[in-house]
């Protein structure tokens, strides 16, 4: 891991300012710290969002839920608002990763997480998503768990979020990304009142330095990866 400075802003404005000067946002850290250790991510500044609140899960007038981007996966999964009205969300969350990781990871980070493709995570392999233009090692390599449909000739990785999979077919959804330009814009385009997820753009970093597909990724077709999840619980899916 390259040395980095660390800040923990207390306000949204400070956080946006830190992001604007190139800081990398960290929420749960379960993806980012791992990727930094692998050399995939090497920020010079880490901006800790944990002081910003945004952890609530509450019903929205007229139907739907508002989930704070920094709400932990475990808390959302066990929220009575979710378990009663959106059990699929609860189940998707609880089938993700492990109890420990769900205590750490946030909803925003979960939806914005980077691919779990082995080549993306191995800096000695080419990967367009990590290093645009370098090629895709998964095409022609090991891609057993990758996309069958909806892939491009540049990347065949699927989105790793079980939650995203649960959200896509059964609900329409909305993210409000806090952009480094300060604008809070809905993205992607499909927005509904059913489940709202407000993300802090936690792991994809400044928009300008991200590979273009890292955040609108969710808008595209997403093939559920039924064979594995983060803790090797492949055969434990029910």
């Amino acid at each position, binding site marked *: 891991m390259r040395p980095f400075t660390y800040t923990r802003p207390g306000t949204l404005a400070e956080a946006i300012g830190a992001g604007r000067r190139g800081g990398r946002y960290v929420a749960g850290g379960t993806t980012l710290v791992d990727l930094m250790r692998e050399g995939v991510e090497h920020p010079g500044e880490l901006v800790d969002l944990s002081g910003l609140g945004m952890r609530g899960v509450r019903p929205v007038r007229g139907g739907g839920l508002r989930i704070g981007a920094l709400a932990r996966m475990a808390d959302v999964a066990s929220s009575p608002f979710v378990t009663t009205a959106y059990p699929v969300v609860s189940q998707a969350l609880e089938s993700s990763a492990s*109890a420990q990781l769900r205590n750490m990871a946030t909803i925003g980070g979960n939806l914005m997480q980077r691919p779990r493709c082995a080549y993306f995570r191995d800096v000695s392999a080419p990967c367009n998503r990590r290093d645009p233009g370098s090629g895709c090692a998964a095409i022609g390599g090991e891609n057993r768990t990758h996309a069958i449909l909806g892939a491009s000739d540049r990347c065949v990785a699927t989105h790793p979020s079980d939650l995203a999979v649960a959200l896509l077919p059964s609900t329409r959804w909305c993210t409000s990304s806090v952009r480094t330009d300060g604008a809070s814009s809905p993205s992607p385009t499909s927005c509904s009142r059913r489940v709202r997820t407000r993300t802090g753009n936690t792991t994809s970093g400044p928009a300008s330095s991200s590979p273009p597909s890292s955040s609108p990724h969710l808008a595209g077709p997403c093939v559920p990866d039924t064979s594995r999840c983060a803790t090797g619980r492949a055969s434990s899916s029910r």
Partner: protein
Amino acid sequence: METRPPRSRLTRRTFIAAASTTGTVVVAGAPGPTASGEEPARPPGPAAARGDGTTGRVTFTLNGRRTSLVVDNRTSLLDLLRERLDLTGTKKGCDAGACGACTVHVDGRRVNACLTLAVRLEGAEVTTIEGLARHGGLHPLQRAFVEQDALQCGFCTPGQIMSGVACIHEGHARSPDEIREWMSGNICRCGCYVNIVRAIGQAARGR
């Protein structure tokens, strides 16, 4: 402050493991950690000496003791425990959040210490396997692990126990199937799962 009988051989390891009440730990001999508010008596470890903002002071409660030290921002809670504080009960199995051997409690919740940056722990309350039971006794789950032979090599055991204590506390230990599901973030390669499930069931039932 409670008084304890003097220990015949007070090493850094036993000192920290034995520490049980509030008050700031001054880690003797370890480069870096100092009493809260004091400047380091000597350079706080080679990494922490950098003046470029890539180190930071963090103050948190560790096994009931307030602890303040300067850390390299890159240092994980796991490496801090193991490499600087000599609390080696927390194990590094994968360093990637996939095996659970490093499970500790932060603010009462089970987390992977390998993915927790130490510098982010300001104000947090951290409990490790060394701080689970007080006064040299065993936590009921520790006792259940021995009684049910829920361990073989023992390497994953501290993480299993920390995870199991939380699993019970969360209310996820009401049936063997539920325990299996909620303990699947802790790999035991020796294959003690059958006995681990029994041990957690036993402790959950308060026996």
